[in-house]
Structures are given as structure tokens and as C-alpha cells.
């Protein structure tokens, strides 16, 4: 089951990958410099491969550590922190189980037919915003580095062909622990793996008696750099996988009895979604992340629910129970 993608009108919806790539390049450069600085005597053919292996080792550490930095720094909180949006689900799904940076297991939803339900006094201030819903979608959070956040739409291909941007949505997510655990596991694993690789290389040099001047030192450095590279990448991958697995188990344990509910996309149910309003600089759009509460306000037998807002209002003031529509899938 795939999660929901948000297609932005403008901006760079893959800005997160660019930032992680910069961390990777930085790591590679530092690794190469470290290897070069440690070379002494006649470099010979070993020099090139030592620098290359050092760069690969640094890139591995940079990738995994950079992924963690990006992961925990990508969401910039708005003021007010918490909002409640009303709407209906245009897309729902859970991102596949797996490792960062490929997938994260998050619960995702694209909310459409948007109404800002709370706070009712949110001022409209963002450049180009005409309504409070525009404000929610377009105001750039402090520290995001953006002047305006880009609106998201449900249609695939909207980013490249603006005529396809038809259905306004606000992307909403609940973070799964597997995403956070996997980036931490990857960072810890890559650093530990690189360190172990260096230690193993030095130990091997000593054991083999090749830690001598000249070509011996160059060969030794090559061995250390290669093992550091293997350690960084293998440690990062293993830490990433182990972290994802532990996070997945932790997610499942937290909801072991499965007392939650299933939401369908395009069902005629009005939803109240409450959560943290943020700018996600990895996608350069605004979203609710994490969703802290979902309430199925009103389900109707058919048709778009928010065209009959009076029936949603009846639930909103407590005169009918929420989740009172047709039975939902389990």
C-alpha cells in the first residue's frame, strides 16, 4: 500500500534529496582530504585509490549522518503550532515499510475540500494568500528559508504541467517510528562502521607488519581507507535496517490491539484533522505533521460531504455523535 504524494505548484518537491546529496558530497570531500593528508612518502598508484576510498567512506558517513540531520530538521513549526482542518480524504495510504531515505512507513493523507476550522482568527498575511486556507497552505514558517510555501495538489504531473493542478489539498502525516529509528540507526551505524573499519585496517597493518615508511604506509592507508568505506556503508545500511525494524515493532506495539479505524479515500466522510502545522522544507510545502487527532465528523451515503456543511456543523456542536456514518472498513 503506497502513501500519498503531494504535487506542488512550483518549488522543488525533492529539496530534501538535494540537501542530503550536499551532505554526501561534503563527506566525500572531507574523506578524500583526510586520506590525502595522511599520505606520506612516495604515493604511487595507492594514492589515487586511497583518496577514492576515503571519499567513498566520507560519502557514506555524510549520507547517513546528513539524512539524520535533514530528517530531524526538515519540519519548521508555524505559529500557532496546532490547527484543525476540516475536509475529506482525496488520498490515504501508508508508506511502505523500509529504510530511509527510500521510505519511512508514515501514515499519509491528502485532505481536500479544505476549511480551516481552528483557529478561527488566523490572520491572512502570506504573500498572495486570499483566504485562511491559502494562509495555511502558503505561509512559510519561520526559519524555513522560504518566502512562501508552494500549494499542493492531488494530481500527478501538476508540478510539470500547471494545468493539471486542479484539486487543492493539504498533505497530512503521522510519523512512524521506523523512519526516525532508521535514520538514527543509519547515522550511528555509518559512524561506528567507519570507525571499526579504520581500527580493523590499522590492526591489520600492525599484524601484517606493513605499517612502515614509504610504499608500506601508502598500502596501509589504502587498506584503512577501503575498510573505512566498507564499514561506513555497511554499518549505515545495517543500522538503517535494524533501526527501521525496531521502529516498526515499536509502532505495532503502540497499537497492538488495533482499536483504531480505517479511513477510505474518496468516501463521503467529513474529517476534522488536528495537528502540528509545519513547513516541510524537503518538499517546500506546508502540511500537518504530525496528525495528533483525526475525527470522522460525518459520513453520508454518497456525494461530497462538505457540500452539506450544515450536517457537519450538527456534529461539530455535539448534537450528533461523530463517526456516525456507514460502517468503515477494518
Amino acid at each position, binding site marked *: *500500500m503506497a502513501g500519498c504524494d503531494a504535487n506542488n505548484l512550483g518549488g522543488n518537491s525533492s529539496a530534501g534529496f538535494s540537501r542530503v546529496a550536499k551532505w554526501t558530497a561534503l563527506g566525500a570531500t572531507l574523506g578524500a582530504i583526510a586520506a590525502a593528508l595522511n599520505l606520506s612518502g612516495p604515493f604511487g598508484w595507492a594514492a589515487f585509490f586511497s583518496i577514492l576510498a576515503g571519499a567513498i567512506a566520507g560519502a557514506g558517513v555524510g549520507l547517513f549522518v546528513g539524512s539524520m540531520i535533514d530528517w530531524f530538521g526538515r519540519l519548521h513549526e508555524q505559529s500557532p503550532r496546532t490547527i484543525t482542518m476540516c475536509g475529506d480524504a482525496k488520498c490515504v495510504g501508508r508508506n511502505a515499510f523500509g529504510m530511509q531515505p527510500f521510505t519511512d512507513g508514515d501514515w499519509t493523507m491528502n485532505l481536500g475540500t479544505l476549511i480551516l476550522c481552528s483557529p478561527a482568527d488566523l*490572520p491572512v498575511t502570506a*504573500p498572495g494568500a486570499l483566504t485562511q486556507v491559502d494562509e495555511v497552505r502558503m505561509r512559510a514558517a519561520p526559519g524555513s528559508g522560504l518566502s512562501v510555501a508552494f500549494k499542493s495538489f492531488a494530481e500527478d504531473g501538476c508540478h510539470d504541467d500547471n494545468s493539471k493542478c486542479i484539486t487543492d489539498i493539504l498533505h497530512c502525516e503521522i510519523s512512524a517510528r521506523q523512519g526516525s529509528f532508521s535514520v538514527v540507526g543509519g547515522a550511528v551505524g555509518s559512524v561506528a562502521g567507519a570507525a571499526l573499519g579504520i581500527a580493523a585496517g590499522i590492526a591489520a597493518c600492525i599484524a601484517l607488519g606493513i605499517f612502515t615508511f614509504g610504499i608500506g604506509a601508502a598500502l596501509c592507508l589504502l587498506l584503512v581507507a577501503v575498510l573505512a568505506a566498507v564499514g561506513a556503508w555497511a554499518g549505515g545500511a545495517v543500522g538503517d535496517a535494524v533501526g527501521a525494524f525496531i521502529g516498526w515493532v515499536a509502532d505495532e*506495539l*503502540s497499537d497492538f490491539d488495533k482499536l483504531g479505524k480505517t*479511513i477510505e479515500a474518496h468516501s463521503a466522510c467529513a474529517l476534522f484533522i488536528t495537528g502540528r502545522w509545519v513547513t516541510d522544507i524537503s518538499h517546500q510545502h506546508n502540511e500537518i505533521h504530525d496528525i495528533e487527532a483525526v475525527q470522522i465528523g460525518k459520513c453520508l451515503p454518497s456525494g461530497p460531504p462538505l457540500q452539506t456543511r450544515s450536517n457537519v456543523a450538527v456534529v461539530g456542536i455535539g448534537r450528533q455523535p461523530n463517526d456516525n456514518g456507514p460502517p468503515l472498513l477494518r
Partner: protein
Amino acid sequence: MPNDPQMRTGLRCWAFLDWLCRVWIIITHKRKGGDDCVYFPERVINRPDPCIYSQFLLMQLKQPVTWENPDVIISKGGAKQYTYDLTVDTQYDIAITVHNTSLEKEALGTKVAVRWIEFGAGALIRHHIEDLVANVGRYPATAVVTTTWRTPATPGHYCIEVQLTHPNDGNPANNLGWNNTQVLAAHSEATTPIRIFNRHVGAPPREEQAVHRGPPWNLVEIEFDSYEFHDAYGDHANGDVMFAPRPPTWPARVEPRMFHFAPDQTYRDVELIVDAPAGPGHPEKFNVTALQGGVPLGGVTVTVTRGA
């Protein structure tokens, strides 16, 4: 936890084995799921929802509102009172009905903050009356919490504001309600001033810029109608009936109906003018609602009487 150390150890062992068993089930069993749908865990989707009649939620949902809140009653000696006309230094009873839309979760320990603000629309200064606690059962249960309030010794006109909070609230959008009412005896032209407060005194909201294209921050627009809320529950609660718009029943106007606040202007009084029919008859209600910069400020409900 039992006092017997052996029993405590046994319970810990059992808890650990139970945990291991759960982990095993998670790893080896296929979990629920499906296409085009997503299962949301209980912690986000199954929560209590304490609520009251919230004009601000209803306005966001584009529904007509009354400021005579059916869930907030102020009375003296059992007689209902209008908040505009309260006597100075006098004790009144306030009763608040708290609802819960959840069929599954009780809204126990709901905090009910009762405050007074100045009569009108958009007053910013809140004055504490009482913090109460409501324990609301599952829908259709309601809880009524009460308090007494002695009005200030200095003359004034008041609005009662009620704000609910619950740490596990499933929908915080329906927690704020006002009771802001006045009764007015009809004349050929019944006139009453209504104070509109400037929400952004001194400075426009953050990042107000030339490129902003929405309504100006200082533009105040005033709407009025004669909508009446007829309370109903469950199957009897039909949204199309409960929220049927009702235009002003008698010739009425607000002057001015639209204006701009100067940056340092704290408030401005507008006038509701109702041309009531001559002779006795039923009273009519006029709900006056203000928006500043396209955003709800608040409002009042004025009941115009026509004698016996």
C-alpha cells in the same frame, strides 16, 4: 502492584513474556490494511470530544450563528438574563452544558474556563470568572457545570466566554463559545450601539506586505440576520433545518456596515437600527456579526421586544 516480592517478580516476568509474545505476533502475522484506505491507530482517531455550541466553528463552516448561546445560560433567581444589562456588583448564576460527540470515550476532567469580556465584538482582554471541571459521559450524555459570578462594581456591559480544554481532545475546534446578548424595547427606530474592537491595535499582523492580496487587515465588515437556533439532538437534529438562514425579519441596518480601523484605533461603535412594527407582538432577534480582515471577530444578539 502487590507487596509480596515473589508476586511482584512473577508479574514482571509475565509482563515481559507478554511483551515478547506481542513482538512475536507482530513479526509473524499479517496486519490489517488494504488498498485506497489506511488504518489510523487508536491514539489519533478514537478520542473524546468535549464541545459546546461554538459560534467560531460554525462561522468557519459558513453557518449562521446566534450569540445567545444555548449552552451558556446566565440567570438570577431562575430568570434568564441578558449579558448587556447586568447590574453592577450583583451575583448571577452561570450554567454551562458540555457535550461529547464521542460514542466510545468519556470526556472526563474537561476543564471549563469561564471568563467575561466587554460586550461587543472582538474584545481582547479576558477577565477570569471561574475554572470548572466537567465529567462528560459518552454521547449522548452531557454535563452541566455551574458557578456564580459577582459583576464588577463599576458599570459595564458584558459577554460571557467559555473555553473548554481536554488533554486528549479529538477536535479542539468546537471548544469556544460566547454568550453576548441584549434586550431592546422597540421604538419607531430601536437603536443600540455595538462596540467593535480592533484585533490588531498598533500594528498589522505579521508579514503584512504590499504583495498580500487578501482583505486589508483593518477592514471591518458587519453582517446581520434574524437567524434562530432551534436545538435538537440525534435523529431530530437536521442540519438543513437547524442552520436554515433567516434574513432580518424587520427593516434593519447597521451604520456603518463597513469601515477601516486606523492603526492605533482601539475600537469603534457602530449602531444597529431596527424599525420594529408598531403595536404588540412577538420579539425578534438580530444577530450582528463582525469580521476584521475577513476573519471572525465575534458578535452580539439583540432581542427587540414589542411590548405585551
